[in-house]
């Protein structure tokens, strides 16, 4: 088992004909992911390494039974592409694009919530979803990870690789690794993904990596205390971030006194979640719990 993507995933890539899109989509294909279609308006009939390209998502779904989408188009086109994929009935949409305007994200989120409640958007501004040994959708370097029982959910890509790699070096693998992205309005929250892991038979332990900005970690802390039976280990980045400065990710900003790393770590610890102070310590805590 795993969450969101697996051997049954049939992926359609928006932006397959672009340089970045084709590079990563073909990487995903080599990993074993079923990459069944691409969407680029005006390029129907072409193919990229044997993957057929369609003008619209509706055409791609009709011809290939695609059931997942990866969005790899520039920011100004990305919201439209996400909405098109949802409109075509695709249930899992992974948006890699960084730099989508916040109001676009707001409209997309609210529209999906109201008109497509069964659609799950992961991202934007995220590294994607990897279910080791099954499927990779996005830009996560799969070589560092193997199959196992640790579910990882994170706002950051490289930090996930750092923590995941330290856990892997101790001999443990992952059910799935989910990057929810560093933007102010992520399609999926920590709570959404932790809920999926809670119900995933393979996942025995959950690692969440948060960072400054917003209150998603505090909300996750409450949820974990009330609804999650599996052990959770957390990490929060940004203790040294000054207020009012955006630290790389559009969503990583301490506004006045809210959104600090300290408040998040304290909220999690108050609810019984163990918080590692360094990525190494997170891996140690996870391994300790896994070895029982």
């Amino acid at each position: 088992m795993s969450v969101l993507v697996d051997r049954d995933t049939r992926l359609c890539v928006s932006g397959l004909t672009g340089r970045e899109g084709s590079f990563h989509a073909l990487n995903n294909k080599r990993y074993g992911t079923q990459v069944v279609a691409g969407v680029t308006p005006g390029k129907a009939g072409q193919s990229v390494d044997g993957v057929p390209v369609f003008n619209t998502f509706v055409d791609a779904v009709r011809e290939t039974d695609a059931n997942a989408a990866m969005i790899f188009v520039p920011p100004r086109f990305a919201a439209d592409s996400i909405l098109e994929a949802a409109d075509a009935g695709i249930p899992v949409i992974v948006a890699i694009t960084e730099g989508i305007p916040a109001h676009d994200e707001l409209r997309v989120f609210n529209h999906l919530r109201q008109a497509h409640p069964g659609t799950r958007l992961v991202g934007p501004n995220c590294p994607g979803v990897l279910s080791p040994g099954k499927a990779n959708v996005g830009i996560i370097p799969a070589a560092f990870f193997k199959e196992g029982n640790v579910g990882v959910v994170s706002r950051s890509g490289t930090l996930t690789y750092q923590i995941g790699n330290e856990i892997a070096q101790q001999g443990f693998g992952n059910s799935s690794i989910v990057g929810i992205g560093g933007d102010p309005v992520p399609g999926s929250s920590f709570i959404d993904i932790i809920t999926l892991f809670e119900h995933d038979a393979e996942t025995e332990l959950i690692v969440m990596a948060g960072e400054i900005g917003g209150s998603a970690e505090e909300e996750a802390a409450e949820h974990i205390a009330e609804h999650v039976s599996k052990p959770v280990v957390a990490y929060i980045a940004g203790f040294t971030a000054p207020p009012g400065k955006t630290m790389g990710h559009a969503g990583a900003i301490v506004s006045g006194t809210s959104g600090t790393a300290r408040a998040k770590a304290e909220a999690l610890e108050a609810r019984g979640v163990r918080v590692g102070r360094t990525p190494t310590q997170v891996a140690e805590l996870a391994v300790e719990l896994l070895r029982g």
Partner: protein
Amino acid sequence: MDLLEYQGKQLFARHGIPVPEGLHARTVDEAVEAAKGLGFPVVVKAQVKIGGRGKAGGIKLAGDADEVRAHADAILGMDLRGFTVHELWVERASQIEAELYASIVFDRSAKRPLLILSTRGGMDIEAVAEEDPEAIATLHVDPLLGFQDFHGRRLAYAAKVPDDLVRPIGAFLHRLYGAFVSEETTLVEVNPLIVTPDRDVVALDAKVTLDDSALFRHPDNAQLRDPSAEDPQEQMAKERGLTYVSLDGDIGILGNGAGLVMSTLDVVAQYGGRPANFLDAGGGSKAEAITSAVEVILANPRVKAVLFNIFGGITRCDEVANGLVEAFRQIEPTVPFVVRLDGTNDVEGRRILADAELPNVHPATTMNEAAERVVALAREGVPTA
């Protein structure tokens, strides 16, 4: 991007939001001319992005040209909590009968815009929230529906504004919402929102935060600048397309990925060091980007040692190593470097560094070891750049 007050008021005016008449000035003479054009009395206001400018002496009332001259002379060049005043806004003095507060914030938790209204304006709203939470009324708006007149009425009645003001405040909020959406802001705040003796409502201050990711759709807003807020290294990094934030320590930091870089700063701090900057070289950084980043880091004269913390995914460690070798060839750094390369092509990257025999470059295998090492080196070192 946060706007200065006058930039915010000009943006408000474009959306029909009432603001006092005013003019921008960079010199004392311009301020005097502006005041004469507007008519006395006027208020001379320092344009810097801090709250509490009045208390800090950055806002002064002037009854005639001599007073304008004296105040402008005193305020220009003044240091207001670390910000030097380079610009003034001169505006007609307003008659104030009451001070309210209005704002629209981008509520990340609810994923909806949040309207906030209070009759207790002119003071720090967070302080009001603490001592008298009942005095603050809030209401979410569905962004797909947009602002409706009932939103304004509901909020105004909830905030207990006088009956005769319910309609004008509703109209004000409607326009404020229009500005919030069409300019793609993440915050519009009016504090105080004043009531004049004629019972008109006017924005006496304007705090606006624009969404940087949306600036491509707003070329006019993208041109707005604040010379007093620009840090030289941040400016240099921006021109080179690097994500850089200045901090006040002495250890230069470079990493790939925002989360890993934030984590690196934290780990350095845990070992007792003080980071000089945040620098995310980004995913897939090529050698040129690394060389360019080293130049930005070393342009800060406080830097005594530099830490490279790379976990290669899309980023290849051999590219990072080549970039560092090239940086040493071009700018011959004199401060020590600690370099931790892990992930994609790490063996090749470490070999390139070893073969180059760069002076004062120390390899490290783990993030913790790297942090500990760079902190020790910064303690020994003296700034030489």
